[in-house]
């Protein structure tokens, strides 16, 4: 059993986890962190486990899930704020030109109203969505492979077995670079889900996971 030597990345502060008012069962997401004393206790009990209790043993042996890096929320919000600002600027320019050319008329009123609604909605959405995304993303690298849970409304979980990885990349967008984040992209030879993307983890961690995957695969292929 080879647990990946990854340090817990982007540990969410306790208040964030507790803040999730819907509770764990609502989203059906696994716990991000197993309380260490419990884990240790279970490990100690391993010797006394019966065959029927092997399932418990398995869960103990499996590495824990990680959330995205907390900076992900900030970087997404910054990007979204810029987008909202551009949208607002565009709307204001349109309104100003219209006003200047035709004075105040019905169209201008409708335009202004619609702009306020749209910009407000976008602003609200771009503030809430990164947090929602963060709360609904979990990942881990285990013996089985890279496992990613994603999606706020349409949720999915995918496991890419290490031996199926064709190649793995780490990319970094400008906003991510600002916050020291990265995106891990794992490619398989599959068709409908040929690549799995994990955006918003620490850049260094992404590189480590990539190296881990590649090392793991080369060991497997070598045997």
């Amino acid at each position, binding site marked *: 059993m080879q647990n990946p030597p990854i340090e817990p990345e982007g540990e969410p502060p306790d208040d964030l986890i507790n803040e999730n008012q819907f509770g764990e069962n609502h989203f*059906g997401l696994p716990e991000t962190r197993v309380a260490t004393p419990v884990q240790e206790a279970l490990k100690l009990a391993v010797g006394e486990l019966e065959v029927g209790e092997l399932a418990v043993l398995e869960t103990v042996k499996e590495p824990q899930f990680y959330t995205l890096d907390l900076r992900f929320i900030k970087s997404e919000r910054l990007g979204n704020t810029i987008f909202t600002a551009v949208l607002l600027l565009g709307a204001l320019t349109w309104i100003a030109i219209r006003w200047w050319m035709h004075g105040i008329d019905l169209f201008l009123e409708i335009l202004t109203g619609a702009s306020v609604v749209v910009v407000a909605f976008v602003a609200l959405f771009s503030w809430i969505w990164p947090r929602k995304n963060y709360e609904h993303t979990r990942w881990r690298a285990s*013996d*089985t*492979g890279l*496992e990613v849970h994603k999606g706020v*409304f*349409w*949720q*999915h*979980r*995918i*496991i*890419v*077995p*290490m*031996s*199926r990885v064709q190649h793995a990349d780490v990319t970094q967008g400008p906003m991510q670079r600002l916050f020291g984040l990265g995106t891990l992209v794992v490619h*398989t*030879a*599959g*068709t*409908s*889900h*040929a690549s*799995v993307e994990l955006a918003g983890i620490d850049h260094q961690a992404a590189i480590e996971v990539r190296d881990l995957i590649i090392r793991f695969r080369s060991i*497997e*292929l070598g045997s």
Partner: protein
Amino acid sequence: MDPENHVNGDIPSVSELPETAPIHPTWLHPSSLVFDLLSYFRQLLIPAGVALFSAASGSLTGMVIAFVFLVPAVMRSVFQYFTLRYMIDGGELIIRKGFLFRSLRTIPINRIQNVDLVQNPLHRLLGVAEVRVETASGTETEARLRVLSIRQVVALRREIFREQDVTSPENAGISSHGENLITESTSTHLRDVDGRTLVTIPMERLLRAGLASDRGMLLIGVVVGLFWQLDLENQVDLRGLLRFIPQFDGTVWNTFIWTAAILGVLLLLRILGVFWYLLRFYDYRLSRFGEDLRVSCGLFTRVSATIPRNRIQFISIHRTFLMKWMGLAAVRIETAGSGGGQAENASSTVSRRWFVPVIPEQMLPELLSELRSGLTLDEHQLAWQPLATNALSRMIRMSVVGSLILGVAGYFAIHAWGWIAGLVAMPLLAWWSRKKSKAMRYCRTDDKIVYRNGVLHRKTSMTFFDKVQTARFEQSPFDRRWNQGRLVVDTAAAGPAEHVISVRFLDAEFAKAEFRHISAIASTMQPDFG
């Protein structure tokens, strides 16, 4: 041949190879010029046709355009013909092209998976064939030689397969197929005499399969498409034609004529289907040479393809309603790298999508055991997993909602009795949901994952743990409401089988457990692309 050995491609060093008679640099068959030009013009069919047409009607510009099209094309073909040479040397197939800009393609012979042949009537008349060389890695044909004479094909195949036979000791027993190909060169049919024949299709069965297929419908679609495409509806007087059709007035004689006419059209469609099957699959033969499967078929255009067994990623058994009734089935396969529909050509279409176009139910188990060692499938004995207990309720509720929408839409569309449509649809859709939920089943055995669905067109597909790429568990907001989930299994090839393993309406906990289990088993196995 030891499959492990084959997969990892234990390539012996060149020194271990015996002296092979190298094929010295050779030109293609001279008729290549013609075929090259023909294929070039097929791409430019419309502009060239227009240009030639106006040139023929004496237009100077037309002549100039035709000249502009024709002369460079001819020059290009001549140039290509005289600069392209192929040879086998040092265990490699080498294709040399170009004069100023030279290209040299070398394909190690032991990496060559298929040497596929296509022969249309013109090819056969001239005794030549188009050759496609495929390797495991490629998503498309690695090299195409258009065209070689049969004698050249035989020599090429002999050299390729001789070297491969040496690299795989267990294949040595059938190394005689090289020799057999020589005797074959006298016949125009490129049929392998050697090997074990697994499936042939007697004429009677082929006719029945044609009758059972919906191919005729597709042909109608093509005709209608052409009709619109060529803007014929403005040129053909449809109303004039309509006048010849008698009105339906409900009298006995009139009803009889109408029924007869409708039956006649349906029969015509079926007969068209039969023709399609005859053209495509006449003299069909599937045979096994060691670890390779070979398919050859076709009435005018003959196709022959080789598929290594371990390249099969996905096996799909299709049964249309009529086929089920006749006790027939069709088998489709998917191989790694057999890309999307766009990349398909005649040989891959036949060898994957129509791998076995028709086979009697009772021959299926035997065929499947030949496709993969140790593969058994008894659909009645499988431990099919049920859908979630509330799956049927959900499907029925979906159909009720659907029929309500239909009723409301009908009411707004034609008022008065429009809502009747929704009312009628409700029990029908509910009944259909019931049938659908009964047909939809999932099963996991020691070596494979099987999924079956479809009421009228039943599809049973399977993939194997060494072919699984990723597993996925999906849950939409609706799924969460019903505590259900979807299980998706991805392989390296999805396309020709027109079926994917994507199981809806499973119990969420069960699907989650399966998702984890499949991934765990797959991760312990080496991927096998063949």
